[in-house]
């Protein structure tokens, strides 16, 4: 590559990077300046946290945070247990109907709960849990993606380790817990990051099944808060928007490599 071409490409790469940051930079600008400066970008504009304070006071964001935290923890915890058990069965046991069962699991990769909103709403309401956090979590608790990833991981565990544990008299569950789970650590981290990001950001299903402050996650709370009929200031809405995305953004900045690798594994399944 010629040097001139190289410099040109570098300039273009940087230019695009800056353009790509504009929406985010704008959100932070607007959130941290008085409403009067929301549309005029005066570098001398005074900084303020007033917008965050007002957003926090005008809507129960503290509760929304708690709801989202409970939601992602509930989903992740159940997913880890259920997927580990199922993946163990698929990876290490031969039984009649295994291939068919595995195909039926993989079906969820094609037809995700996100598109079965009509019937899943009916199911959740038949169970009498509408407008609760478990209602948001239920369709996602058994994750085909998690089962698939962990099955691959468990299949690569060397037999020698399993045999050694068996000679020591460990039961099937003990072997799962002492041999397979520790060896799957990187898969668990990858799956965990994808699951938490996905459910932190998920919107349509939570919007459908929640109807009150007690169960609404942040994304739905933000949509309710930002609806035009509420007449809230733009600056306050952007402050709320920043609050919604900040925890994940900070986590991403701290653990970039893990995030990128996990997202890639999720895409490549």
């Amino acid at each position, binding site marked *: 590559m010629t040097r001139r071409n190289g410099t040109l490409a570098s300039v273009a790469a940087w230019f695009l*990077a800056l353009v790509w940051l504009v*929406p985010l930079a704008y959100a932070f600008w607007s959130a941290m300046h008085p409403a009067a400066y929301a*549309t005029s970008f005066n570098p001398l504009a005074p900084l303020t946290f007033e917008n965050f304070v007002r957003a926090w006071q005008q809507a129960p964001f503290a509760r929304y945070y708690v709801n989202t935290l409970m939601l992602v923890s509930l989903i992740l915890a159940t997913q880890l247990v259920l997927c580990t058990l199922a993946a163990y069965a698929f990876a290490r046991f031969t039984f009649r109907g295994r291939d068919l069962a595995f195909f039926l699991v993989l079906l969820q990769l094609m*037809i995700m*709960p996100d*598109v079965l909103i*009509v019937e899943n709403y009916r199911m959740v309401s038949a169970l009498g849990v509408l407008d609760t956090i478990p209602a948001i979590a*239920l369709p996602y608790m*058994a994750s085909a993606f998690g089962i698939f990833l962990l099955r691959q991981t468990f299949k690569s565990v060397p037999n020698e380790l399993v045999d050694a544990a068996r000679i020591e008299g460990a039961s099937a569950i003990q072997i799962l817990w002492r041999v397979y789970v520790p060896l799957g650590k990187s898969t668990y981290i990858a799956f965990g990051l994808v699951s938490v990001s996905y459910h932190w950001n998920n919107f349509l299903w939570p919007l459908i099944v929640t109807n009150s402050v007690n169960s609404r996650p942040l*994304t739905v709370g933000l949509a309710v808060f930002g609806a035009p009929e509420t007449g809230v200031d733009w600056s306050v809405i952007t402050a709320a928007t920043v609050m919604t995305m900040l925890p994940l953004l900070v986590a991403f900045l701290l653990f970039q490599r893990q995030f990128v690798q996990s997202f890639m594994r999720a895409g490549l399944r």
Partner: protein
Amino acid sequence: MTKPSPERWGSPLWMSVYPWLLLLPAAVLLIAFTHYPILATLYETFFVTRRNGQSTFIGMDNYRAMLEDPVFWQVLHNNAVFALGTIPTSIALALVMALWVNRNLRGRAFVRLAYFTPTILPMIAVANIWLFFYTPDYGLLDQLRGLFGLAGHNWLGDQRTVMACLIVMVIWKEAGFFMIFYLAALQQMPPELEEAAAVEGAGTWHFFRRVTFPLLMPTTLFVAVNAVINSFKLVDHLVIMTKGGPNNASSLLLYYIYEVAFTFQDRPYAATLTMTLLLILVVAALIKFAYLERRIHYQ
């Protein structure tokens, strides 16, 4: 590594029950929230709910009604426009980004970060930010146009511009995600190729067109299929930006299903529309699996 051998503890009977016990909790939830809903959706399409709440069997009438529903065709058309508008451009951008970031670029980590960050943001937050960009007169877009003396425009309220606005936003959101797949593929490419090409005196563009691009073809296909699937699932932004409007100009199939089911309360028709969406997703997934299968054989 040794070939994995199945685990064996205890009697054959116990060993045939044991894996099913392990599967049971996941199976119950999968059946309740994936398999049963799929069958229930199909079943529901053959009925109509009368005003008194009774269901009556009507055969294929819901499907007939769907084919005669202009909004159905409009949302399918919108989905096609949305896919064609977002996918090729974001893939091309993703490839360019990956090529740039893969080079010896000063501040490479920062540039890569800038490209990837939109991926992890909630769609609903992204929609809020971009909603402001498109606000008539006060929004960033109209302010920029104002510098050139151009009048404000109701970008999201105009049938001719609303789709383009949403497409630009989604390209911004997705390009960085696709980039990481190209980046992974580029890093797998043997460096000798480039060295050999340099010796032969092949230019940058020539090398890209004859070597890099063909070698990245599997990645491109893979990303494209995934992007198509995504484009049918992505409707969060419509809820707060346009509600599918104006006049259904920005509505997509899943958003229409949501409206029919929860605003118009017509469950059988929503189920019929869902069957169309499921058909599309299954076809896309079959293409993907067929392709994955082939890739495994190559390795």
